[in-house]
């Protein structure tokens, strides 16, 4: 049935908590307040305060509580009100969760999900408008998931909860109200498998998360000009489904990579590196990246709009690799 992205996440949590009593949700405002973005609505009433746990404002602390609980067999879902606040918890995510299996010689895996909204919303300014996926995807031991649609949100979160590794789920504040068909029942979306969201032969648009919506809008407009776009939604940026990227680029011979974050050391850089190594002879044009302008996010509406990647910038990038006059 048609559901919002928010409800799809809520359903994934509810189903997994019903299925496995080791799964619990912990974070700021997840219980009594029902979630800062209402993702956890109704869960406290259904599962009680031991399994839906409000915390003090203490990101480092409760992230570490989750890691400790996971080491001894529970399956925590740790909600960060936003990933901007999670910087305080990165020691736990990076030094504890991601490395425990390795430095213990395989003795202690950490089955934990860290989730929450990532990237910019509207006019939240510099400290609340950041995309952290390249930071997180840099770390061996983590998986990083970036659902774009309600169906993927549900299916990927369910897979993330069942995965025996630490999994980062990057949601989007601007996505929570978006709607789409969500299959009923226990339908999983596997981690590490991309999805071709639109088929076309002229140019590949490789993206993930919220930028999938931008890419699809750009593709729609370009179709009116006779340019058919292959939209590859990575869905997981680590591990990355590079085979799907290569297959698309080999079909279209051109690629644009769209990401919400900054250019330097971004996910797009990794994708372009892969394409130049594996698809060098298939390319008819250099790959072009679309990303946030290299500044902190400004508050003013016009400046914010200018800073973000958008449909117009994406279309311009496609025309550039197509050698079409803009």
């Amino acid at each position, binding site marked *: 049935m048609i559901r919002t992205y928010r409800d799809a996440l809520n359903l994934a949590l509810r189903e997994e908590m019903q299925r*496995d009593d080791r799964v*619990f949700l912990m974070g700021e405002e997840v219980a009594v307040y029902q979630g800062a973005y209402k993702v956890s609505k109704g869960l406290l009433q259904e599962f009680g305060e*031991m399994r839906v746990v409000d*915390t*003090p404002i*203490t990101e*480092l*602390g*409760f*992230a*570490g*509580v*989750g*890691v*400790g*609980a*996971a*080491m*001894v*067999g*529970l399956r*925590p879902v740790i909600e960060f009100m936003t990933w901007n606040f999670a910087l305080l918890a990165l*020691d*736990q995510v990076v*030094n*504890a969760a991601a490395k*425990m*299996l*390795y*430095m*213990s*010689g*395989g*003795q*202690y*895996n950490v*089955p934990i999900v860290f989730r929450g909204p990532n990237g910019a919303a509207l006019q939240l300014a510099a400290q609340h408008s950041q995309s952290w996926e390249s930071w997180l995807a840099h770390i*061996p*031991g983590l*998986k990083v998931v970036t659902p774009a649609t309600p169906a993927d949100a549900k299916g990927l979160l369910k*897979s993330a909860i*069942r*995965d*025996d*590794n630490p999994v980062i789920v990057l949601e989007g504040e601007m996505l929570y109200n978006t709607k789409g068909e969500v299959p009923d029942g226990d339908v999983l979306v596997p981690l590490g498998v991309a999805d071709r969201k639109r088929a076309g032969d002229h140019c590949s648009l490789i993206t993930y998360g919220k930028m999938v919506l931008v890419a699809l809008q750009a593709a729609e407009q370009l179709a009116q000009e006779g340019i058919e776009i292959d939209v590859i939604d990575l869905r997981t940026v680590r591990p990355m489904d590079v085979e799907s990227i290569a297959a698309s680029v080999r079909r279209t011979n051109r690629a644009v990579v769209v990401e919400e974050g900054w250019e330097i050391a971004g996910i797009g850089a990794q994708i372009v590196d892969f394409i130049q190594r594996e698809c060098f002879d298939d390319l008819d044009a250099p790959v072009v990246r679309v990303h946030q302008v290299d500044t902190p996010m400004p508050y003013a509406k016009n400046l914010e709009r200018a800073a973000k990647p958008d449909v117009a910038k994406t279309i311009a990038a496609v025309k550039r690799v197509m050698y079409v006059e803009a």
Partner: protein
Amino acid sequence: MLLQRRFEERCAEAYALGKIGGFCHLYIGQEATGTGAIAALRDDDYVITTYRDHAQAIARGVPPRAVMAELFGRADGVSRGKGGSMHLFSREHNFLGGHGIVGGHIPLATGVAFAIKYRGRDQVCLCFFGEAAVNNGAFHEALNMAGLWKLPVIYLIENNRYGMGTALERASAINDIAERARAYDMPRAVVDGQDVLAVRQVVGEAVERARTEQIPTLIEARTYRFMGHSMSDAVSGTYRSKAELEEHVKRDPITVLRSMMQERGEIDDAGVAALDAEVRAVCEDAWNFADASPEPPIEALTENVVVDTTS
């Protein structure tokens, strides 16, 4: 304690020979704290600690062979040669690791205790850290939640007076650091960390409180590190005087225990000598075992990054 002492003397020797690399932090002088505290636990309780972890692993029952092999970076090491001195783990002994970021593991202990309460078990978690860790946010955040949620955890400050080279009174606004427990509505205790029986007694009371009433405790064990912070640090260094060190060495925890036992007639000089010979043989065996253990296979490099399973 004697085994731990002799073991770490061999560690220092191995480090000088290049058989042990990286950072290596010795526990010499502090053995009574770890030994007494761990002696108060059951086998199904949990221990989590800092990077100064060799002696505590041994106190918890991890075989000296597996500890030495880990220090040598060998395949038979307790962490298969992938953790090293600072990251000894043994699932078999509920020994949840040596952790290398000061204070970073304190929230993990709170999480272990949360899991115990979640499941309605009567286990406890014992968490060691140094006095310097009480000044960082992880300590405060972790203890606040344990106090708030009433979790079965014992936080044991090993106050060895120096965070690397910075004395307690140069780092903490209050010197009586067990007092910090008041901020978390938590019982507190101060104990002579050089007296293994006193430590066992005080930790035992906290364990009982955690096990039966799910009340966390903050304990400060006053101890002293006889060696440098790590192998790259001089024994006395620029931050403490030789006279101060010598004064503290007079209260060597092994001597304190031996005197007590001799006064009670529980051991004589011959008994001590026999014990010493016995532990020296164990250490020699551990060294030989570690030396003969193969290096980890090159495939191990990319193993254990992630697991392939779901559940």
